[in-house]
C-alpha cells in the first residue's frame, strides 16, 4: 500500500476510523485541535458522528454514554482539557467501559503554553481521577504509531473493557511523516455486556456505584486482577542497541526520537550506549529494564517534565545502579547535542 505524508494528529483520526470508530466527541484545544478538526471532516463522510461538546466534561460523558452502546468511540484533548475529563475517566474505569482517549500534552501547570511537555505522565499513568483504577497508556513516537497505536488502543480497550490513553506530545502531533494505513477492521466482536437497544437490555447495566463495602471491594479486587493480567500480557517496549551497552538512555515519545540520534552519533564515536523506549507507560516495562541490569552500569532518563516517569524507573532499578535524570520543561525540547554533552560527562565520570 502506498504511504501518505500526514500529520500525526490526522493519522490518529484515520487510524480510528479504520479501527471501526464512528463516534468522536471533542472540544477544541491546541495542540490537539487538528484531531477534532479531522474527525469533524471524516466522521460524517463515513456515516459517523462528530460532536463538539460544550466542554471536556461533557465530551467525556458523551463518550461514556456512547461507549455504553458497545460501539467504538473516542475523544481527544490536551493537558488542561484532560484535567477536566478526569472525573469521567474514573467513571468509565469503574463502569469498565472501553473508550479511547488521546492526550496531546502541552506545557503546564495551569494554562501553561501550547508547546510540548510530558508533564501529564502522572495524571494519566498514575490516575488523575479518583479511585483504584488504571488506564492502559500507549506512547507513540511517530506519525505511523499515531495511527497504529490508536488502532491498537481500540483493541485493548475492547479486550479488557478498560479506557486506553494514547499519550503523545505536541511534536508528534504536529509532525508529518509517511504513514502506511492498514486495511479497515471488517468486523468487530459483539459486546454482550453493552446496551443493544433490545429486549435483553433489562439485564444490562452500566454503572460504577456499589453501596455495599464488601461488594465494592470485590469489584475493586476484580479490577486489580484484570490489571495484573494486563501487566502480564501487554507490556510493549523498544530497545535500541542495548545488547552491549554500558549506559542506557530511557525516554518516550519525541524524546525517544532524539535519544535515537544521540545513540547513533555516540556509537560512531565508539561509546557503548543504547536506548530503551517504553511504548506502554502502563503497564511499565519493568521486566525489560530489569533485564538490562546484568550489563548496564548507568541509566540516564530524559523527560520533558519535572521527573515523572523516572520514578517508575527508580521503582524498578532501586539503588542497584545509578539513575541520572535530565529534563527540559515549559516546551523547551532538548537538542541531541545537549544530551550528548550530558552522556559524555556520565561516561567520563
Amino acid at each position, binding site marked *: *500500500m*502506498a504511504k501518505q*505524508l500526514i500529520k500525526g494528529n490526522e493519522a490518529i483520526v*484515520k487510524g480510528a*476510523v*479504520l479501527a471501526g470508530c464512528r*463516534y468522536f466527541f471533542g472540544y477544541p484545544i491546541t495542540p490537539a485541535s487538528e484531531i477534532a478538526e479531522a474527525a469533524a471532516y*471524516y466522521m460524517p*463522510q*463515513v*456515516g*459517523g458522528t462528530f*460532536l463538539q*461538546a*460544550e*466542554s471536556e466534561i461533557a465530551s467525556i*460523558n*458523551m463518550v*461514556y*454514554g*456512547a*461507549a*455504553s452502546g458497545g460501539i467504538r468511540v473516542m475523544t481527544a484533548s490536551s493537558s488542561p482539557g484532560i484535567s477536566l475529563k478526569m*472525573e469521567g475517566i474514573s*467513571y468509565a474505569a469503574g463502569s469498565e467501559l472501553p473508550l479511547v482517549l488521546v492526550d496531546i500534552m502541552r506545557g503546564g501547570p495551569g494554562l501553561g*503554553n501550547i*508547546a*510540548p511537555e510530558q508533564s501529564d505522565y502522572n495524571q494519566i499513568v498514575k490516575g488523575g481521577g479518583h479511585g483504584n483504577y488504571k488506564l492502559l497508556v500507549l506512547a507513540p513516537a511517530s506519525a505511523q504509531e499515531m495511527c497504529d497505536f490508536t488502532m491498537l488502543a481500540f483493541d485493548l480497550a475492547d479486550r479488557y473493557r478498560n479506557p486506553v490513553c494514547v499519550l503523545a506530545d*505536541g*511534536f508528534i502531533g*504536529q*509532525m*508529518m*511523516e*509517511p504513514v502506511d*494505513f492498514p486495511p*479497515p477492521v471488517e468486523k468487530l466482536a459483539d459486546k454482550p455486556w453493552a*446496551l443493544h*437497544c*433490545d*429486549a435483553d*437490555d433489562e439485564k*444490562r*447495566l*452500566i*454503572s460504577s*456505584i456499589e453501596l*455495599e463495602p464488601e461488594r465494592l471491594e470485590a469489584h475493586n479486587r476484580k479490577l486489580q486482577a484484570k490489571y495484573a493480567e494486563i501487566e502480564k500480557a501487554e507490556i510493549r517496549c523498544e530497545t535500541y542497541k542495548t545488547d552491549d551497552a554500558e549506559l542506557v538512555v530511557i525516554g518516550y515519545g519525541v524524546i525517544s*526520537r*532524539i*535519544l*535515537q*540520534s*544521540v*545513540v547513533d552519533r555516540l556509537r560512531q564515536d565508539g561509546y557503548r550506549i543504547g536506548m530503551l523506549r517504553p511504548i506502554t507507560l502502563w503497564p511499565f516495562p519493568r521486566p525489560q529494564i530489569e533485564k538490562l541490569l546484568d550489563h548496564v552500569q548507568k541509566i540516564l532518563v530524559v523527560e520533558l517534565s519535572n521527573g515523572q516517569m523516572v520514578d517508575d524507573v527508580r521503582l524498578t532499578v532501586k539503588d542497584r545502579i545509578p539513575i541520572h535524570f535530565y529534563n527540559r520543561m515549559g*516546551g*523547551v525540547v532538548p*537538542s*541531541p*547535542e545537549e544530551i550528548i554533552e550530558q552522556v559524555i560527562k556520565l561516561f567520563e565520570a
Partner: protein
Amino acid sequence: MAEKVLKRADSFYPIFERKGGPTPDVTHYCPGCGHGVLHKLIAETIDDFGIRDRTILISPVGCSVFAYYYFRTGNIQSAHGRAPAVATGIKRVFPQSIVISYQGDGDLAAIGTNNILQAANRGEKITVFFVNNAIYGMTGGQMAPTTLIGQKTTTSPMGRKPGNEGFPIRMSELIATLHAPIYVERVALTDAKNSTRVRKAVRKALQNQIDNKGFSFVEVLSVCPSGWKMTPVQAKEWLTQEMIKAFPLGVYKDISDEIEAQPAKGNVFSVQGLREQLNLPEEKVAPATPVNKTATPEKYRNPRLKMAGFGGQGILMLGLGIAQAGMDAGYEVSWIPSYGPEMRGGTANCHVNLSTERIGSPLVTRPTVLIAMNLPSLEKFVDEVVPGGLIITDASLVTQPPARKDLEHLSIPATQIADELGNTRVANMVILGAYIAYTQILDQETVFASLPHFIKQKSLIGLNIQAIKKGIESISSQIKN
C-alpha cells in the same frame, strides 16, 4: 403504600434484585417521596407505549441514583449533572432508542446546568424528567439552586438569603427561551388533579421522542419530606402553598404539533469505500524515474534541512515539497513546522529530514542544509549549520554572503525569477529546483509528480513546475559560469 404499587407496571422489575438487602420488594425512597410516584407514572407510560425494549434510562446522582434498581429497561448510571451528555452519547448511537434523562435539581440546575442547557439547545431527541424538590435530598437536605427564599436547609440554616445565595432558578422558563426544545412544561405532584397533568406531560414528552420530534423537558415539583423535615402531609401542603408560587405551573413552550413525526432508524456502518472516504492512497504509484540515491554526492546524502523566512514566503510548503518528493522517492522523511515559542514574529521555519535510515530526531538542531529566504533567518540560524554544510539564500533578499567561511553558499535570485514568472509566491519552488539540481538529492520528475499531493489548487501546478524548472536552470547556468 405507594412503594408496593410500583411493581404493578411491567416496566418495573418484578423484584428489585439490584437493590437486594432484606426488602427487595420495596423502593429505597422515603415514605411520601415524589420520586416513587413519578417513577410509577413513567413506567406505566412505557408500558402503554410498548417501548420498554428500546428505552434507556439515565440515572443521575441524587436520590434517584438507583432508578436502575426499578426500571426494567436499559440503564446507565452517570456522574453528577452529566446525564444529558451521557444521554446525548447513547442516543447518537441508537437514534431509534427512547432515552430518558431523569434528574434532580442539584444535578440539573447546579452542577449540570451547562450540560442540560446545551443538550436542550442542540435539540437532542431525548426526554428529560426534572424532579424539583427545592433541596439536595440525597446528601441530607442541603440548599439547592431551587431552594426558596427564606427556606431553611442544612447549608442555609437561617434561610436562603438572596444577597448571599441568589434566587431560586427557574429552569423551565430558561429552557423555554431556547430555539430547539419542542416541549417544556412544569407540573406538580400534589393532588389527584395535578397528578393527571403530570401523567399527561409524561406521555406527551415520551410520545414526542417516539415520533423523533425533538427535545422535551418536564419539570415536576415534588415533595421531599425528609429533606424538608416535614410529614408527607405537611410537605404536600408546603409544596401547594409555597413552592408553586415560586415555580408557576404551566406549559412554557410547545411546538410539538408543528413538527412531523418521523420515526428514527438505527445506524448502519460499512467499510465499503472507506479508503476513498478517508482520502487514502489505494495503490503504490511508482516514482516516474526511480531515484538512484547513490547518484547524490556523498556530502549531500541524508540531509537535515532547516528552512526559514517570512510568513507568506511559502516556507512550510517548500519543506513539504521536499518531504513529499523524498517520500515518493523512497526515503524516510519527516517534516515539522516551527512550533511553540519559535512561532512568533511573523517568521516561519520548518525542519525536514530525508534519510535512507530510520530517522531519529525530527528536530533539526544542526542542519546540513539551511535555506534562508531572508536576512533575519540567515542571521538566526547560520551558526547552527554543520561545518561544510550548505546554505541557500534568496539573492533578492539576502545581498551579503554569510560571514562563516567553512560553508558552501548558493545564492539564487528566487524572488526575482518568481516575479518574472508573474507570481512572487513561487520563489519557494525556484529554491526547491535549485536545491535538487545542486545536490542531486531528488530528480525533477519525482518532484513534479509529487506536487498534487500538497498543492491543493490544481490550476497552480503548471506555474509551480515552471518555477522549479527555472530553479534547476539557475544551477546549470551557475555551473556553466
